[in-house]
C-alpha cells in the first residue's frame, strides 16, 4: 500500500506537485497517468525518498522510504532507463545492487531468468537497446522480491510483444498480492496494463478510477447523417439532446440513444444515411479530464 497525503513540491517558482493525495492498493496494477511534465516522476521520487517534499507525506506500508528496513526487499523501483554504468555488464550491475542489500548472488540469476535476459547479461550495458534496459531495470526492481513495485514508464521502448510480456508479468505480480504502481504518459499503454488509473495534470490530482470505470465515464455520442439534418436536429433538441454539427454536415448527438434517434426519424419520415453509436476512447476521456491537452 502506498499512501500519498497532500504532497507538494516546488522547484523555484514552478509548482511541480500540488497538494496531491491518493492511495495505491495492493493486489492490483495501478497506473499513474499524466502528460509529460505533469509531476509523475517528481511524485515517485518523493515516494522513494530521492526528493524532499515541500509539504505533505508519502509512505509505503506506513513508513517513509528512508525508515524502511532493507528497502530493496520491501520496494522495487525503477526510475529511468539510462541509470547504468555503460561499461558494466547487466549481470554485474545487478550484482552490485544485490551486494548493497545483502541479497545473495544466486538471486541475480533468478531475476535475469524472469525478465528473459540471461543470454545478454554478460554484455556491457552500453550495447543494450532501450527495451533491454527496461528489462534490466525490472530485474533490478525484482531483486529483493519486494511486495511493492514502483515503475516509471516501464513500457517506454518496448515493442507490442514486449508490452504484452510486461502486462502479463505485472498482472502475475499483482496476482500474488503485490502493490504495482506504474507511471505512463500514454493512455493506450495503461488501458492494456492497469486495473486502476490515477490521473494527474500539472501536479494536481484529476481522477482515480478503475480503468473500466474510466472507460464507462467516456461520454457516448451518436453520429447521424441525414439530408434533413436541420429538421432532425430541431426534433432531437426538443427531446433534450445536445447537438453539435461535425465536418461534412453530420451531427454528433449526446444525451439520447441511437434507438431514440431512429424512432424520432421514422415517426417524422426523415431519411437517415448514417446512424452510429460512438464510444470515446480512454484517450478522449483523458483529454476531457485534463482540459484538452495532448498526452505527449
Amino acid at each position, binding site marked *: 500500500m502506498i499512501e500519498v497525503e497532500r504532497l507538494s513540491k516546488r522547484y523555484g517558482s514552478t509548482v511541480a506537485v500540488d497538494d496531491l493525495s491518493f492511495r495505491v492498493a495492493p493486489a492490483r496494477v495501478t497506473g499513474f497517468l499524466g502528460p509529460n511534465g505533469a509531476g509523475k516522476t517528481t511524485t515517485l521520487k518523493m515516494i522513494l*525518498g530521492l526528493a524532499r517534499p515541500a509539504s505533505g507525506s508519502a509512505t509505503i506500508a506506513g513508513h517513509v522510504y*528512508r525508515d524502511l528496513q532493507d528497502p530493496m526487499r520491501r*520496494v522495487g523501483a525503477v526510475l529511468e532507463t539510462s541509470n547504468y554504468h555503460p561499461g*558494466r555488464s547487466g549481470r554485474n550491475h545487478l550484482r552490485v545492487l544485490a*551486494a*548493497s*542489500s545483502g541479497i545473495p548472488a544466486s538471486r541475480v540469476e533468478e531475476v535475469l531468468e524472469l525478465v528473459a535476459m540471461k543470454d545478454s547479461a554478460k554484455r556491457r550495458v552500453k550495447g543494450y537497446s532501450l527495451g533491454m534496459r527496461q528489462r534490466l531495470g525490472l530485474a533490478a526492481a525484482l531483486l529483493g522480491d519486494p511486495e511493492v513495485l514502483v515503475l516509471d514508464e516501464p513500457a517506454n521502448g518496448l515493442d507490442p510483444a514486449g508490452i504484452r510480456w510486461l502486462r502479463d508479468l505485472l498482472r502475475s505480480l499483482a496476482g500474488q498480492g503485490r502493490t504495482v504502481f506504474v507511471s505512463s504518459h500514454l493512455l493506450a499503454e495503461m488501458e492494456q496494463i492497469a486495473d486502476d488509473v490515477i490521473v494527474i495534470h500539472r501536479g494536481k490530482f484529476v481522477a482515480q478510477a478503475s480503468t473500466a470505470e474510466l472507460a464507462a465515464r467516456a461520454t457516448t455520442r451518436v453520429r447521424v447523417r441525414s439530408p434533413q439534418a436541420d429538421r432532425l436536429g430541431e426534433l432531437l433538441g426538443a427531446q433534450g439532446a445536445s447537438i453539435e454539427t461535425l465536418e461534412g454536415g453530420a451531427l454528433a448527438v449526446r444525451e439520447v440513444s441511437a434507438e431514440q434517434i431512429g424512432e424520432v426519424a421514422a415517426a417524422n419520415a426523415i431519411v437517415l444515411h448514417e446512424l452510429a453509436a460512438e464510444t470515446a476512447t480512454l484517450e478522449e476521456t483523458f483529454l476531457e479530464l485534463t482540459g484538452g491537452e495532448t498526452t505527449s
Partner: protein
Amino acid sequence: MRLVYAELLKIRTAPWTTATLLLVLLAIVGLGAAGTSSDASGSVLSLESDIVDIGGIATIFTLILGILIVTWDYRHGTITQTFLAAPRRERVIVAKVVTAVGLAVLLTAIALGLAIGIAEIWLGDQFQLTDENWQHAGRIMLAAVLWAVLGLGLGATLQTQVGALISAIVWFLVLELVLVGLGSKIWNIDKYLPGEALREFSSSGQFEEERLGRTAAGLLAAGYAFGFAALGTLSVLRRDVTQ
C-alpha cells in the same frame, strides 16, 4: 560493510577507469624511479628521499580516486539505485570514505613499493633507507589518505565528475601556485593553502622557519580534508537526486 563491498564491486566491475589510473601511476613511478636511479652517483645525499618522493606521486592519484568514487555514481545516474538500496545516505558516504581510504593506502603502498623496489634492484647497497626515510614514506601514506578524503569531499560537494576534476586541477595546479607566488610576498598566506599544507606535511626536508611546522601543517591538511568531507556530506544529504 555491505555497502563497502558494493563500492568495491562497482570498481571491480567497471575496471577501465581504475586500471588506467593504476597503469599511469605505475608508469610514472617506474620511469621516475628508474631515471633517478640511473642518474645517481655515490655523492647524491637525497637519493633515498627522492625515491620515496617519487612514490609520493600516488597522492595526486588518490585525490582523483576520491573524486571518482563519489562522482561516477552521479555521472552515470547510478546514484538513484545506490540511494534506493541505502536511503540513509550518510551510510553511503561512510562506505565511500572507507573504500577511498583503503584504496588510497593500497595505491600508495604499491607506488612506494615500486619506486623503492626499482632503486633497490638498480643500486643495490648504494641505496639504504633510514628510519627517517620510512617516516617520510609513512607521512606520504597519511597524506594520500587525506588527499583521497579531500577529493571525496570535493566530489560530493559539487556532484559533477568533470566539474570536480577540473576544479581540483585548476585549484591545485594553477590557482594555488599563483596564490603561493603572490601570497608569500604580500599576505603570507601560502602556508595555509590546502595543497601547501599537505606538501609541507609529507615532504622530507625542513621548510623555512616561517612555515607552520610539520605537525601543524598535517593538522591543517586534515582539517581541510574533513571539512570538505563534511561539506560534501551535507550537500549529499540535503540535495534531491535530479537524475
